[in-house]
């Protein structure tokens, strides 16, 4: 009886200890991978804005020969051949060499960047695999674990490695934040930056160095094939939500951190699942959601905004057409709001029956147009005011274009149509001041022929 209880308590303690230790380890893994995600998201944003996302791919593949060579050298020198800083130093050297080769090939040959990246990526990777295979059977050193650089395995890191990784990541992130202004300038207007006296080449190299640092540090956790996703995906996802760079950087860092955290925790719970793959899939899911719903550039909000604009344009067209017809059919000023027939409207702008019905339905839902029992339509009180305002804006813009853009009066109607829907009250006030036209009614600069739906120059 007492024996059993002793064994039970012993087991329990062991389990507790293991669990505690394991929790501690897991915590370190999760923290380092989360930090990695944040740093990669941050730096990947600049890479994305520089339109050099795939350069990270060439870079990560180019690190493999360095790992192999460093392993061989360290074992030849009798050191611990799997010391992480040593391996990563090798990775950094060949990685940077790869990036420099890409730039050199692009500069000195007729080949484009994609071919240059492809050459470096495939040749360095091939060389790396060949070297890894060669050094695998060096007597006295086990190369097991080097494979984790290809597919990624956070659990293969030992505790001192993780501290090293965390330190490098924190330094990288701070460097990136310190250089925020310079990098922003580099991304948006390189030529301006160089004329302002900024050392753009040095900045470019610094950015590449930071990318290299994050890539190399991330190799062990995510693997060299998938590390590129850490650089690209969070940044691209964040881009859908905002047009503000600072917000984008924050968001990219958060998205990267969340994917990293998810990937590392899931793979710690279920060791059979490769962490790199989970991280990439988590990031991809966030990307997909962002691409669809992202507020600034997402597909759905953009589509809705487009639909909204289309409605607004259609409504403004029908109001202006009605107003122009009223003007043309009446001698007296100010004109009166009388019902007009659908046929007249259709001729005026070449609407098909279906289109016209749709536009009228929208205008009616906003109480701008009323339908008479006779089948004619009539502007409402508010519609009439709106119509006269829209027509006036249109003409102001036409006059402005004729005066300042030298557009012929016979052609100005369509050109004005491209912009007038976006004129705000402020711009209209500026137009009035510019054209010296404060009166409520502005004459059309060209003849509006309602019967034929044609607009031609005034005869006199």
């Amino acid at each position: 009886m007492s024996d059993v209880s002793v064994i039970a308590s012993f087991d329990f303690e062991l389990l507790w200890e293991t669990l505690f230790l394991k929790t501690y380890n897991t915590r370190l893994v999760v923290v380092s991978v989360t930090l990695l995600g944040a740093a990669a998201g941050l730096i990947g944003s600049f890479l994305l804005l520089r339109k050099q996302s795939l350069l990270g791919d060439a870079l990560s593949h180019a690190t493999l020969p360095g790992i192999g060579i460093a392993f061989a050298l360290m074992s030849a020198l009798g050191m611990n051949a799997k010391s992480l800083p040593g391996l990563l130093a090798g990775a950094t050297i060949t990685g940077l060499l790869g990036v420099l080769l890409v730039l050199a090939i692009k500069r000195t040959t007729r080949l484009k960047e994609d071919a240059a990246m492809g050459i470096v990526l495939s040749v360095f990777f091939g060389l790396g695999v060949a070297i890894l295979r060669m050094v695998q059977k060096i007597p006295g050193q086990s190369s097991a674990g080097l494979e984790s650089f290809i597919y990624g395995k956070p659990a293969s890191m030992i505790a001192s490695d993780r501290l090293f990784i965390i330190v490098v990541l924190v330094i990288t992130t701070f460097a990136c934040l310190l250089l925020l202004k310079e990098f922003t300038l580099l991304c948006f207007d390189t030529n301006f930056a160089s004329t302002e006296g900024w050392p753009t080449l040095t900045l470019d190299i610094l950015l590449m160095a930071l990318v290299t640092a994050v890539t190399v540090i991330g190799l062990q956790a995510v693997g060299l094939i998938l590390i590129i996703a850490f650089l690209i995906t969070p940044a691209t996802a964040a881009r859908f939500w905002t047009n503000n760079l600072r917000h984008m950087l924050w968001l990219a860092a958060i998205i990267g951190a969340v994917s990293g955290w998810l990937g590392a925790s899931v793979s710690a719970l279920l060791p059979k699942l490769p962490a790199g793959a989970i991280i990439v899939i988590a990031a991809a899911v966030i990307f997909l959601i962002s691409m669809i719903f992202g507020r600034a550039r997402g597909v759905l909000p953009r589509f809705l905004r487009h639909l909204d604009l289309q409605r607004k344009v259609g409504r403004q067209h029908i109001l202006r057409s009605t107003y122009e017809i009223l003007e043309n059919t009446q001698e007296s000023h100010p004109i009166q709001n009388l019902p007009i027939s659908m046929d007249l409207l259709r001729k005026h702008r070449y609407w098909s029956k279906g289109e016209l019905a749709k536009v009228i339905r929208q205008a009616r839902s906003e109480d701008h147009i009323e339908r008479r029992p006779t089948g004619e339509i009539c502007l409402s009180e508010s519609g009439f005011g709106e119509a006269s305002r829209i027509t006036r804006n249109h003409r102001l813009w036409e006059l402005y274009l004729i005066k300042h853009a030298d557009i012929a009066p016979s052609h100005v109607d369509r050109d004005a149509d491209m912009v007038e829907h976006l004129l705000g009250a402020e711009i209209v006030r500026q137009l009035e001041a510019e054209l010296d036209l404060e009166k409520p009614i502005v004459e059309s600069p060209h003849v509006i022929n309602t019967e034929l739906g044609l607009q031609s120059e005034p005869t006199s």
Partner: protein
Amino acid sequence: MNWTVNDLHIILVGVLCAMACALPGVFLLLRRMSMMGDAISHAVLPGLAVAFLVSGSRASWWMFFGAALAGVLTALFTQWITKFGKVERGAAMGIVFTTLFAIGLLLIEQGAGNVDLDAGCVLYGALEYTPLNLVTLFETEEFLIQMPHAALVTGSALLLNILIIGIFYKELTLASFDAGLAETQGFRPKVIHYLLMTMVAVTTVAAFEAVGSIIVIAMLIVPPATAFLITRRLPLLIGLSLALAATSAILGHLSSQALPALLGLPETMSSGMMATMSGFLFLLVWLFGPQGLLKKQSRELVAPPTL
């Protein structure tokens, strides 16, 4: 170095595979889509995994079908993300292929963990083992002509690619150089585009078993790029790419036999060395070729090329 019939077989498979890849690679290069080759050869992994899980065998038409589908999907998704999301093409490609590769890794780890399909095999292949799987072509009492099964597969891929490029030479050329004109002439550049993507995917699958995707990526990109530095004529470009691809494969295997002994190391991998050798040839042409870096001083800068 012990020269055996095995080496001959390995070289045969390598050469056939390299040439099969170089053909579509020329058109990828002309369309500035070389990285698409890289993306597709990674992204076929889930197609292979699903096909493997469905059919339960490695050598089957399912594999070809699954991979070709995954390849076309890569191109399609990239297109969609670029078009609808207004994302730069490089970034879109990166997102698509890493995601597909990750899904493939998960599927393999989960479903096929204990069988003989693993990610490493897709990446590196097993060129050294191809001579173990021989097919008898011709057998009488005196003669026995055999070739590796992989040679048959990659050879078929090469023939298929020659056939497709032979038939659609005009369309491929026009669509590569002037997609707009091709469209107005009724050549459907989009169909040609996806045809090319399918070719790349099918070639990748044909090659993956024997040589892995390293060679596929290298041979898709490097020999055409090297040839591009030598000539501006398309027929010559294709011919040179094939020759360079074959040379890289031969040199690759030879060096994989010679190099480790030189360094006092046990062995290396032929497929890796084949990729390395293609890079070595590129380096030679880059430095010493007709427009090589070392000749730059003696020559005026010429106007941009017109192929």
